[in-house]
């Protein structure tokens, strides 16, 4: 008898890895963006299975709602026809071998390491809020400042007439 949570975990894993493989293998770049969306939703499923409801919500809103849309806009603003001819790099077998070797090393490290484990348990939303906005309030503010500076920088970068065109 397989535990239902394990079945759900395998479904989320299949979504995540299937979407990821779609991103790196598909020829059509718009399909790649949608495969990325599938993969990110799968990660949100993993968050839910780990009882991190808040993070699952953030994942769907920010990644599914914002990042994939921004990537699609980038595809729209650069010319899409170009991507059809942009095949993979000549040295892709080398990249595949490198990735597989890295995977082997990581799995060996995982098997070799034992961590004192408990049962799967989440964090109460109250504890999370206390941690995020009281204990780690200053890093949180710095992160928001970084985001603000990055967005202003992005606007300045793409401004059409900087006088130097």
């Amino acid at each position, binding site marked *: 008898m397989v*535990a239902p949570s394990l079945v759900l975990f395998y479904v989320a894993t299949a979504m*995540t890895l299937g979407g990821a493989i779609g991103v790196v293998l598909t020829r059509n770049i718009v399909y790649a963006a949608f495969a990325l969306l599938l993969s990110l939703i799968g990660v949100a499923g993993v968050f839910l299975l780990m*009882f991190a409801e808040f993070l699952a919500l953030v994942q769907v809103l920010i990644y599914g709602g914002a990042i994939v849309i921004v990537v699609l806009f980038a595809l729209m603003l650069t010319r899409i026809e170009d991507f059809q001819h942009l095949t993979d790099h000549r040295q892709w077998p*080398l990249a595949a071998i490198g990735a597989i070797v890295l995977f082997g090393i990581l799995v060996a490290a995982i098997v070799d390491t034992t961590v004192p484990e408990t049962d799967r348990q989440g964090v109460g939303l109250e504890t999370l809020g206390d941690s995020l906005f009281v204990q780690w309030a200053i890093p949180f503010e710095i*992160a928001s400042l970084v985001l603000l500076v990055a967005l202003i920088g992005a606007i300045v970068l793409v401004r059409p007439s900087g006088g130097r065109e």
Partner: protein
Amino acid sequence: MIELAHLQVLSAALFCIGVYGVLARRSAVLILMSIELMLNAVNINLIGYAAFADFSEAQRALGQVLIVFVITIAAAELALAIAIILRLYRNRSTVNVDEIDLMKW
């Protein structure tokens, strides 16, 4: 039962797919998407430890707070990278990273 090792292997697999994407793709936007995959692999690893490791409640919460920070920085990084790509496309009319070799010597 789900175990910590399941999440770690999922995380490692996702990260390696991202590495392959960064190395094998030639379009800057696709490389960016592969980087997002790698960041998500890190998040899966963090949530695995936050859920399974024998930590106190405050330490578990810190695991989730770190994921919030990773997502924030990923959003900032993506916005800047997209701006740079659009600028490059306007100046050089390509997003093929093999042709963008201005700083290569």
